[in-house]
């Protein structure tokens, strides 16, 4: 931002970057298995992670670099719903507690590696499983791309972006190098790499944020000073733009949602995002990598430590206002705050934390997307006779492709595009909830009805997001993820509701209605490959082997 490269900050940054690179490659020797040439080993870390490792891995997975940049950025920008990330990550864990142990059990018993494997086994529908796999891959790609946006923000502030006049090659080279390194060690170490790097990442993040939260208020007149300055800044904006706000051409700024409509947005975003998060293939990958079903439950009680941290971090967005940080791109507010308020070595530490914070989820996400590709598209359609080693090879290649796809995505398309697609990703992934979550409890919903409900939810959610203009710019698209509740043009309520949730309700209505029809017509519901007891088994139970053979899996066809 300020042009020059600070040598101290850069040295610290490069030191940690080097450290995680070494760790990433060494990870393949950690808890070494006989061979990494099968999906369980490469893609699920041998399904052997205990509470401690899982805590770091799942934490590293959920709280991404983009979260660390974007959540404070929304508070900095005066969005009244910006803090929703905190209740979102509060309600997430009880939900995980309820549903995911069942998924762990059935996956372990039937050797499912992906959520689409489960849907295939449960509903005996290749079309539905493909829909789930396709949705997972589609929703994960922009998520990976956003991690790159997070790294880019840090590189920019570090001065590695080459400034606004730099050519694309100079500008993008550092990002390219960082990602090539990430791709290389994910390729060689699989899920073990992000699990090991997550230790470094989370330690750094905790140190940085706790130090910042303790130190910054002493510099900025205490928390009351920070909140008063932020409030004053928002009040000034609202006064200066009173006409535009009244005309609906600008959004009023504030600290928290005061109107009922905004409170609905806050609550529905929290719930919708929480429901979406654990449908993402990378959450499922992290959960299935644990060694018994209670590790998930225990972690549901331990992971909220991160929510606390995220809340503190979010408040730094307000501290940036109080510190007088002025940036046009709110995403740069936090990196800028660190550069401005802290000594270079601490800023370097913070930047390293954010960048490494991008590597962990990016690696897990690319592995998850690659598993989906291999199991549910490659093996299901292209090469049903693929051997275990073939699967692992495919997944490794696919993880490279996915990452470079995301890189091209970020470099070639405007940044807004990734953010819009990420918004859509949440809406899309929610549409797989009926098949997966309800499927964990009952097979009552008919497979064809689920597919129809999925399609309706996907189309409606995409359309709703597409047709929401940016405030003050009619005719634009993807202006937000909430809107007044409307069904077929009839406004039911002025309260703002997250599209993902409305699309999900629509999805469920269609699924239930069609199930009645299909059942009345006695259309075959297929054969259930699972048994009720499968949903309750734990490690050590009969037929639940710790070291299972992927070839014996009911083939994903």
């Amino acid at each position, binding site marked *: 931002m300020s042009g020059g490269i600070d040598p101290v900050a850069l040295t610290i940054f490069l030191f940690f970057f080097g450290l995680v690179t070494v760790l990433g490659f060494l990870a393949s020797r950690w808890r070494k298995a006989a061979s990494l040439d099968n999906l369980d080993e490469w893609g699920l870390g041998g399904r052997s992670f205990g509470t401690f490792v899982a805590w770091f891995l799942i934490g590293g997975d959920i709280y991404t670099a983009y979260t660390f940049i974007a959540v404070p950025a929304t508070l900095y920008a005066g969005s009244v719903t910006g803090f929703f990330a905190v209740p979102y990550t509060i309600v997430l*864990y009880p939900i995980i*507690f*309820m549903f995911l142990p069942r998924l762990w059990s059935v996956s372990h018993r039937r050797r499912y590696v992906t959520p689409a494997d489960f849907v295939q086994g449960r509903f005996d529908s290749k079309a539905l499983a493909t829909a789930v796999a396709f949705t997972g891959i589609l929703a994960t790609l922009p998520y990976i791309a956003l991690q790159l946006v997070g790294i880019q923000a840090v590189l920019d502030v570090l001065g590695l972006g080459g400034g606004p006049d730099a050519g694309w090659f100079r500008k993008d080279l550092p990002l390219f190098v960082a990602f090539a390194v990430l791709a290389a060690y994910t390729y060689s170490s699989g899920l073990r790499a992000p699990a090991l790097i997550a230790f470094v990442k989370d330690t750094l993040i905790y140190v940085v944020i706790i130090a910042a939260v303790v130190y910054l208020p002493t510099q900025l007149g*205490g928390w009351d000073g920070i909140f008063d300055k932020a409030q004053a800044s928002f009040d000034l904006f609202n006064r200066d733009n009173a006409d535009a706000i009244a005309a609906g051409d600008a959004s009023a700024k504030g*600290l928290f949602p005061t109107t009922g409509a905004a409170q609905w947005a806050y609550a529905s975003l929290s719930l919708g995002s929480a429901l979406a998060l654990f449908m993402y293939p990378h959450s499922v990958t992290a959960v299935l990598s644990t060694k018994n079903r209670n590790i998930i439950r225990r972690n549901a009680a331990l992971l*909220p430590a991160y929510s*606390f941290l995220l809340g503190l971090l979010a408040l730094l967005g307000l501290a940036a206002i109080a510190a007088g940080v002025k940036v046009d791109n709110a995403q740069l507010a936090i990196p800028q705050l660190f550069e401005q308020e802290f000594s270079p070595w601490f800023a370097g530490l913070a930047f390293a934390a954010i960048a490494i914070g991008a590597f962990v989820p990016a690696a897990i996400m690319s592995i998850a997307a690659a598993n989906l590709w291999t199991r549910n598209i490659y093996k299901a359609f292209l090469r049903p006779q693929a051997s275990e080693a073939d699967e692992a090879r495919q997944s490794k290649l696919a993880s490279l492709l996915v990452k470079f796809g995301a890189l091209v995505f970020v470099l070639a398309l405007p940044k807004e595009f990734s953010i819009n697609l990420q918004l859509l990703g949440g809406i899309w992934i929610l549409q797989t909830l009926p098949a997966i979550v309800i499927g964990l409890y009952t097979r009552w919903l008919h497979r064809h009805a689920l597919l129809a409900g999925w399609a309706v939810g996907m189309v409606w959610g995409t359309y709703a997001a597409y047709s929401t203009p940016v405030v003050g710019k009619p005719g634009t698209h993807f202006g937000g993820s909430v809107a007044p509740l409307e069904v077929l043009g009839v406004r039911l309520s002025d309260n703002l509701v997250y599209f993902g949730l409305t699309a999900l309700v629509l999805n469920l209505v269609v699924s239930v209605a069609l199930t009645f029809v299909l059942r009345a017509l006695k259309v075959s519901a297929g054969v259930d490959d699972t048994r009720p007891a499968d949903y309750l088994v734990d490690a050590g139970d009969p037929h639940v082997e710790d070291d299972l053979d992927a070839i014996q899996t009911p083939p994903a066809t």
Partner: protein
Amino acid sequence: MDERTAGRPAPAPGSPPGPARLVAAGVALVVAVVVPLLVWTYARRGPELAGIPFFFWYQFLLVVVCVVLTTIAYRLVISHERDRRRAEGRDVA
């Protein structure tokens, strides 16, 4: 929470535990999900705590409360599962 009602293998020695603990765990979890979503109950400025508006510090408090609720649910479910395994004559981990 239909953990208990799902089918079990052949009849087993001992009597299986009742659903009381699972129901209690379910209630604790539902409370932990619903309370943070009642935004209107906490979207206000006061009373402040060390300069932090109620809206913010209350949600930090909720994080702690929900950890307690989830921990209670965890203990209930674990003890239920242990008894169920014992009733089924399986090894108790």
